[in-house]
């Protein structure tokens, strides 16, 4: 039972364009969301996060949007660069539920940015 779903296994975009990665969740206890980026043979690295009290968080080229009513979040990368090519994982935690240490991950989306 996947509580965090990334329904697109892969995404290919042209350099300079926008990349939009989507994530849906089913557990209404989740109130904090994170995106991780993973290169081959490396561990995931933290990219950006958002609390459920916000609907948007921006950090440079990366913006995360949260739609609580739809239980949906998305990561926008603008402009996309070839170095952004990696697997992106969406993750969630339940701070109010006392499990602020545990992350539930989606299966990931492989982003390829073509020069």
């Amino acid at each position, binding site marked *: 039972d996947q509580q965090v779903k990334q329904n697109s296994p892969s995404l290919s975009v042209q350099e300079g364009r926008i990349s939009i990665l989507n994530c849906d969740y089913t557990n209404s206890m989740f109130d904090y969301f994170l995106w*991780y980026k993973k290169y081959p043979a490396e561990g995931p690295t933290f990219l950006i996060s958002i609390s459920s009290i916000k609907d948007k968080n921006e950090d440079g080229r990366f913006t995360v949007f949260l739609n609580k009513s739809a239980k949906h979040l998305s990561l926008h990368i603008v402009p996309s660069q070839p170095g952004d090519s990696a697997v992106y994982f969406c*993750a969630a935690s339940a*701070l109010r539920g006392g499990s602020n240490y545990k992350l539930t991950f989606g299966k990931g989306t492989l982003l390829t940015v073509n020069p």
Partner: protein
Amino acid sequence: GAGVSQTPSNKVTEKGKYVELRCDPISGHTALYWYRQSLGQGPEFLIYFQGTGAADDSGLPNDRFFAVRPEGSVSTLKIQRTERGDSAVYLCASSASGTGGMSGGYTFGSGTRLTVV
């Protein structure tokens, strides 16, 4: 250390054997986590240590899996009577406090790729 270090980076073992996977967290990080990433899946939570004690081991799949952190720093994940289904990348992570599920998240190591043949 500067990052989370995991050894070995790769381990091939025969079905039924015992293996130990080691994790050196970032110096001073009190919280340590083990996750398992199977092929085509995202990382799945195994166990969380706060200091020396396992605060939550609910993700360990069965009693063949055990983890220790005797001095509150290095941790070892131990798998007995390995099975082919145990093949995965085992990721260790650490954070300064037990709130790694928020703010800056965890810092992950590069993982140990375990292959059971």
